[in-house]
C-alpha cells in the first residue's frame, strides 16, 4: 500500500506544481511576493552589468527598476536573474522571471512561436563586425573565409549567416555559450572577427586587452530592436511593462526629469498633470498607483537620463543617441500618449 500512497501523493504534487505555473495574473503574483524578478544578461556594460559594489546597472536594468517603481513606489524592489542567451526564453516561459530585459531582439518567431510578447523597443540597434586593426580589413565585404566568434542562440548567429550567404562569402563560426567566452576567444585570436549588436561591440570592446587595437567595420547588417519581453496571455502585465517604457519617453518629451519632477507637480500643463497622476486614473487602469509615473521619473529618471547615464556619449560606451533620439529630434523613440 505504501507504493500506492506514494503514487497518489506524487500525482497530487505534480498536479499542483503544474497548476501553479498556470496560476493567476503576473501583476498579482508580483504584488504578493513583493518584488519583480527580472531576467538580465550575464554582464553587458551599459545594458545590464553589476558595478563594483555588486549593484546591477544599465538600460535594461533601469526598465526593471522602473516597473518596480510603478508597482511598489520603490525602484529597489527587483531581484535579478543573470541568464545566458540560450537560457533566457525558457526562463521566461517557465515563469522563473517575470520580465526579460536582456538586450533581446524583437523578431516574429520569438513573438509568436516562442509564446512571448515584446513590450516595446528600449534601444534601436544593428549588428556590426569588429576586427583587429592589424588585419587591414576596411569593409565587411572583405571577410570571405574569415572565422567569426559569435554567441549561441542569438539573432546575431542568423544575421551573420544571411549576410555571408547574400554576399556569396564563406565563413567559419566558432560558437560559445557565454558572451565573455566569445570575447576571450576573439581576443586570443581564435577568430578574425567578432560580431554582435553594435552597442554590444562598444560595450564588449572595453573588456579587450587593448581596445584601441580593434575597429568596428562600417556595415550595419541588420535591424536589432532590443526590448523587454513578457509571456503571452497576460495582458495586464504586458500593458504595465509596455506603458512603463512609454511613460519614460513621455516624461522626456514633456520635460519631466528626476530633478524637476517635484516642482512639476504644480504645473498647469494637463499632459503633465495626467502623467503625474494629479488628474485622471492612468495608474488605476494599469492596476497600480496613480502616481506611478512620478515614482518612475523620481527614482529611475526619464528615457534620456537613463540613456545618458548608461550608454550615452559621457560613458565609456560613447554611443550617440542616433536612432534612439525622440521622434521630434529625428529619432525613432515615440512614446504613446498617456491619456
Amino acid at each position, binding site marked *: 500500500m505504501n507504493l500506492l500512497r506514494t503514487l497518489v501523493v506524487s500525482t497530487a504534487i505534480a498536479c499542483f506544481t503544474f497548476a501553479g505555473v*498556470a496560476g493567476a495574473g503576473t501583476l498579482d503574483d508580483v504584488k504578493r511576493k513583493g518584488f519583480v524578478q527580472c531576467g538580465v544578461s550575464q554582464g553587458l556594460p551599459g545594458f545590464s552589468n553589476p558595478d563594483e559594489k555588486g549593484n546591477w546597472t544599465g538600460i535594461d536594468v533601469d526598465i526593471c527598476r522602473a516597473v518596480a517603481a510603478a508597482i511598489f513606489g520603490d525602484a529597489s524592489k527587483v531581484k535579478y536573474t543573470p541568464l545566458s542567451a540560450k537560457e533566457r526564453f525558457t526562463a521566461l516561459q517557465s515563469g522563473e522571471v517575470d520580465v526579460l530585459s536582456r538586450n533581446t531582439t524583437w523578431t516574429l518567431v520569438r513573438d509568436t512561436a516562442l509564446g512571448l510578447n515584446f513590450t516595446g523597443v528600449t534601444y534601436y540597434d544593428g549588428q556590426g563586425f569588429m576586427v583587429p586593426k592589424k588585419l587591414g580589413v576596411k569593409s565587411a565585404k572583405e571577410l570571405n573565409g574569415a572565422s567569426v566568434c559569435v554567441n549561441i542562440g542569438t539573432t546575431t548567429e*542568423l544575421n551573420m549567416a544571411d549576410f555571408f550567404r547574400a554576399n556569396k562569402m564563406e565563413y567559419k563560426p566558432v560558437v560559445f555559450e557565454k558572451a565573455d567566452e566569445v570575447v576571450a576567444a576573439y581576443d586570443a585570436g581564435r577568430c578574425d572577427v567578432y560580431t554582435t549588436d553594435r552597442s554590444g561591440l562598444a560595450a564588449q570592446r572595453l573588456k579587450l586587452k587593448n581596445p584601441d587595437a580593434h575597429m568596428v567595420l562600417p556595415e550595419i547588417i541588420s535591424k536589432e530592436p532590443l526590448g523587454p519581453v513578457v509571456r503571452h496571455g497576460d495582458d495586464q502585465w504586458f500593458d504595465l511593462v509596455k506603458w512603463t517604457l512609454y511613460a519614460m519617453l513621455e516624461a522626456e518629451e514633456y520635460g519631466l526629469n528626476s530633478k524637476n519632477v517635484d516642482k512639476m507637480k504644480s504645473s498647469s500643463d494637463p499632459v503633465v498633470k495626467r502623467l503625474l497622476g494629479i488628474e485622471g486614473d492612468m495608474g488605476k487602469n494599469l492596476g497600480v498607483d496613480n502616481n506611478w509615473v512620478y515614482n518612475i521619473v523620481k527614482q529611475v529618471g526619464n528615457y534620456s537620463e537613463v540613456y545618458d547615464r548608461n550608454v550615452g556619449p559621457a560613458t565609456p560606451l560613447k554611443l550617440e543617441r542616433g536612432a534612439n533620439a525622440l521622434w521630434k529630434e529625428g529619432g525613432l523613440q515615440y512614446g504613446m500618449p498617456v491619456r
Partner: protein
Amino acid sequence: MAAEKKEALVLAKPPAKPPIWNDPRYRALFFQVLVLGGIILLCVFLVHNTLANLARQGIASGFEFLGRTSGFSISMHLISYAEENTYFRAFLVGLLNTLLVSVIGIVLATIFGFILGIARLSKNWLIAKLATVYIETLRNIPLLLQLFFWYFGILRQLPGPRNSIALFDTFFLNIRGLFSPQPIPQPGFWWIPAALGVAIAGIIFLARWARKRQEQTGEQFPVFWTSLGLIIGLPLIATLITGFPLKWNYPELQGFNFQGGLVLIPEFVALVLALSLYTATFIAEIVRAGILGVSHGQTEAAYSLGLRPTPTLRLVIIPQALRIIIPPLTSQYLNLTKNSSLAAAIAYPDLVLVFAGTVLMQTGQAVEIIGITMAVYLTISLLISGLMNWYNKKMALVER
C-alpha cells in the same frame, strides 16, 4: 497450547482453496496492474498537461521544424552541410561530430589505459611510480577543468595563422587548428584498399587454418609474422603496380587562414585529449584489477605444463583477466560517450551545441529537441552496452 490445537485442526482438513483476495498470486498480480496503471495514468497526465500548457502559452510544438531550412553554419561537418540545409541535416552533423569524438576517444582511452594499467604493475620502480602518479592525478581532477586546461591553457596559447608553426612546410599548427595535406584519390586508387581487404580476409582464413592444424597435428605455424607480411605486402604490391594514384591537397595561407587540406580544429583536439586522457586512468585501474584478479597459481600451473611466458600471458592470463575487465570497461565507454556532451563548454559543434543549442534557440521547441537529444544519447549508450555484452558473453567462461 491453543495454537497447537488449531494448527492440528487445520492440518486435519483437506487444504481449502483460499478466497481470491487472499491468494498471494492474484494479490501480487492485482497490485502490479494497479501500479502499472497508475504509472501509465501519470505519464498520460504529464504529456497531456505539457501539451495543454504549451498550447495555452502559444508555444509551437510538433516535429515539422526538422524539415525547415536551418540558416546557420557549422564549423566542422563530416557530411556536406550549408546554410540552405534543413534542421534535420544540422542534427545529423551534430550527431556525427559526437560519434566521431566518442569513437576516437574510446579507441585512444583503451590503448592508453591498457598501457598505463600494465605500467602500474611493472617491476620497474620508475615506470610503476610514474603510472601511479599520472593515474592518481588525472583521475581526481574534474573532467571539465581538464577540458578548460587543454583548450584555454594549452591550445589558446598557440600563435596566430601568420606565425604558424610549420613542419616540413606541409603541416601547420596555429590557434585555428592543425592543418595537414588532404589525400585526393585518383582513378585506380581503389586497388590499394581492395588489396588491404584481401590481406585481412587472408589473415582470418590463415588463423583458422593454423589453429585447426595445430589441434590435429600439434604443429605450430608462424601466424603473426605471416599476417604482418600479408598486411604490409599486398597493399605495397598494389601501390607499386598502380603507381600510387593519390594526389595531395596542401594547405596554403590565403587571406585570413590556411585554405585547403585537412583541418583538425582546436576544440576537437582539446575534447579528444581531455576525454581520452581522463577515461584512460579509469581503464588503467580496471586493467590492473583484472590482471591482479587472476591468481598466481594459474601462471604457475601453466609454467608447470611447460608453456613459455608469452603463450602463458596470451592463452591463460589475458582470457581470464578480460572476463573481469569487460563489464566495468563498458561503463567507462558509456561515461566517455556521455561526457562528450561537455563539448558545448568549448564550442565543439557536437549534438548538444548544435541541436540542443542553436537549433533549440532558433525554433524554441525545447520539449521536442531535448527529447530527441536524450533519446539519441540513450540509443548510443544502449548500442555500446549491447555490443560489449555480446563481447562479454563471447569471452565468458564456457562450461562444458
